């Protein structure tokens, strides 16, 4: 009898962590949908990076990155993106505490960081294109290099641009008193995802 009730208590404890029905993830539908989007988008980037890895392993002569990129410049881009992620996290925290004016300030700072990153990426693209890199050719080595460079950084840059639009929209809504905590939180989740993807691109494409 005692053993049966102990089993029942343990069962309820497990169910408390795995509760189905009304709210299995204990999160609103917006948050759950944002997470689904992040997982599927992450898989898309995963596919790109996997094919890049194979292309690189099988290439005859992969270009020497030191010859193509300025690493301190790419490091500065990384610094900008990491910092913008910290300001975004602060905006979410402020929104959760109901301090929407502070949340607005941090959201604006994040948007500035995003715009700066995009500007730096545009400058990098211009430099690489001027050096002769195209989607199907480049002066440094294997032809696939150009394709993967433009694909990976371009796709990520598009995400940054989308994030920037979301941030500006969130900031406008916060300034006019129409933003909700959940709205800021969703913008934050997306922005951190953009930062997360850059961690992989920075390491796998620029450093290795």
């Amino acid at each position, binding site marked *: 009898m005692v053993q049966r009730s102990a089993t029942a208590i343990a069962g309820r404890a497990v169910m408390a*962590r*795995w509760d189905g029905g009304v709210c*299995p*993830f*204990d*999160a609103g539908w917006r948050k*759950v949908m944002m*997470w689904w989007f*992040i*997982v599927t988008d*992450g*898989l898309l980037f*995963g*596919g790109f990076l*996997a*094919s890049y*890895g*194979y*292309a690189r*392993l*099988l290439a005859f002569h992969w270009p020497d990155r030191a010859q193509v990129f300025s*690493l301190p410049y790419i*490091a500065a881009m*990384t*610094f900008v993106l*990491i*910092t913008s*992620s*910290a300001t*975004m*996290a*602060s905006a979410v*925290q*402020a929104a959760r505490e109901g301090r929407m004016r502070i949340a607005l300030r941090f959201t604006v700072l994040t948007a500035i960081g995003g715009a700066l990153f995009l500007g730096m990426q545009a400058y990098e693209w211009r430099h690489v294109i001027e050096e002769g890199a195209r989607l199907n050719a480049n002066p440094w080595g294997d032809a696939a290099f150009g394709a993967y460079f433009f694909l990976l950084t371009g796709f990520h840059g598009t995400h940054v641009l989308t994030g920037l639009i979301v941030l500006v929209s969130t900031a406008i809504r916060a300034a006019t008193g129409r933003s909700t905590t959940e709205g800021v939180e969703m913008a*934050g*989740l997306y922005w*951190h*995802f953009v*930062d*997360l993807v850059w*961690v*992989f691109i920075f*390491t*796998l494409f620029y*450093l*290795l």
Partner: protein
Amino acid sequence: MKNYWITWAVLLVFTVAMLWADAMSIPRTVFVVFMLGAMLTKATIIGGNFMHLRSERLPLVLTVVIGLLVIGGLLYVLIAPDAVRIHEMVRAAQAK
């Protein structure tokens, strides 16, 4: 809010360590292992602290993390045969 700036500092330290490792002449295998380790650590820190996965409910965390890892791994394995086949086709075409 302070925690987020500590996380930011930790991420910066990892980034600087990666750049430092890049500037040093470390054996290639050690270098690659270090870079991949640092990359995964940074990703975990961002996911856990900035995206609040640490404080989310277990089913959500497991769905996201296992979903990404398992399907991502599967994706990588499924690309491999085609990648090697294309490589062999290119080599054969160049040999002619």
